């Protein structure tokens, strides 16, 4: 990280926030289009998420009586800032220039912030539907976080490093973790679906039961920012899963010149995140919502158990082959 101009371009333009904004809208569009086509509908046109965002920014902001509107203005921005910061540590084109040991933990922490923001908003909305939604949101966080974190820690265990960029480099030399740790891959995908609060885990936002849960009192630009946060989370989550399990933006052999390797790596990054999105969209279309107590059962019995088994297998593999 020597050249400040290079740093500024990386953070703000490419592959920084401008690219992130564009790619988040593209992935949101593709998600809706794929879901629509699977249901034999037509789906939205290409610019629909962008148009929704612009329209929402211009709508009236309604403050319910007795609610602290300052927090309602600031909290969505905090959530958006958290996920945008998490994005900077994920390798997009080659290694991230901001990488350091432990950035995996930082990324996971920052990605949990939107859920806490939703809980806060639900609690402060002073209506029973939002309170129930906020409580469900945090309950869901407790349930899926343990298996999700364990599943994302096993690549770090095997690669022997806490930095995402170095895990990608390890996979370039050896094998993609999706083949070495398939259980972790599946649990990571399920956990990602729960983090993004998509069907079957859209319990906090259950439209037919509690109106819109913690989203009920968000209007105008607050809703636009919160929606954008979820779209950006989708990008960061798929990029994280692609980096940790599918080898990230690296190709398994060296190519000269170096700029060509970067370009091919970038297109591989796009392809891998699109593959993750296809799986997530398919899960969303094929299932219905489950109840919070059923999620409790499934999460603690099957997901947590499977992730612990996977950690055990990884430790044995480490002892016998990787570090023998």
């Amino acid at each position: 990280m020597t050249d400040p101009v290079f740093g500024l371009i990386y953070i703000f333009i490419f592959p920084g926030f401008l690219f992130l904004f564009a790619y988040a809208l593209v992935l949101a569009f593709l998600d809706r289009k794929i879901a629509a086509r699977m249901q034999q509908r037509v789906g939205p046109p290409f610019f629909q998420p962008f148009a929704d965002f612009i329209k929402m920014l211009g709508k009236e902001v309604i403050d319910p009586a007795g609610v602290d509107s300052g927090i309602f203005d600031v909290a969505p921005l905090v959530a958006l800032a958290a996920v945008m910061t998490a994005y900077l540590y994920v390798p997009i084109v080659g290694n991230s220039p901001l990488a350091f040991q432990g950035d995996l933990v930082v990324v996971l922490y920052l990605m949990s912030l939107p859920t806490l923001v939703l809980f806060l908003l639900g609690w402060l909305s002073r209506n029973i539907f939002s309170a129930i939604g906020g409580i469900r949101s945090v309950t869901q966080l407790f349930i899926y976080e343990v298996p999700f974190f364990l599943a994302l820690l096993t690549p770090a265990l095997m690669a022997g490093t806490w930095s995402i960029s170095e895990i990608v480099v390890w996979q370039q030399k050896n094998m993609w973790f999706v083949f070495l740790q398939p259980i972790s891959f599946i649990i990571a995908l399920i956990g990602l679906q729960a983090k993004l609060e998509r069907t079957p885990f859209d319990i906090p936002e259950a439209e037919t039961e509690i109106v819109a849960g913690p989203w009920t009192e968000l209007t105008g630009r607050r809703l636009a920012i919160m929606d954008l946060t979820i779209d950006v989370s989708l990008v960061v989550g798929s990029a994280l899963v692609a980096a940790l399990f599918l080898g990230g933006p690296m190709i398994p052999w060296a190519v000269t010149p170096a700029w060509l390797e970067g370009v091919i790596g970038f297109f591989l990054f796009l392809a891998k995140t699109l593959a993750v999105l296809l799986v997530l969209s398919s899960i969303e279309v094929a299932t219905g919502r489950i109840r919070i107590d059923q999620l409790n059962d499934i999460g603690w019995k099957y997901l947590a158990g499977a992730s612990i088994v996977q950690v055990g297998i990884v430790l044995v593999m480490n002892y016998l082959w990787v570090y023998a």
Partner: protein
Amino acid sequence: MSVLREMFENLLSRPITILYPKEKVPIPAAFRGRVAIIDEKCIGCSKCSLVCPAQAITMIEGQREVEFRGKNLARKKRPQIKLFKCIRCGLCERHCPTEAIYLSNELSGSGTDPEVIMV
């Protein structure tokens, strides 16, 4: 997993949405659309006005020479319809002795004033 199979089959085929108004569906012959009157056939018997459940038909002045069953009649009245009160039940068409009033195949349209005279 029949749901999954069908999902992926649908992904690779065309959607079944009909993009109205660019594409249209054929309207069946029995469609009950906007009410219309053929003035030459109406003999002014007021049956439509008596039968209409929504009381959308009133009889007004309408002198005309009409032919009915081979004889010439001097009709005195003719019907006038408040289009937006019409519920398109078709009772007028059913009870008209000369098939002068009928429900056509056009769409009936809608408006905000139920008292406005359209036909």
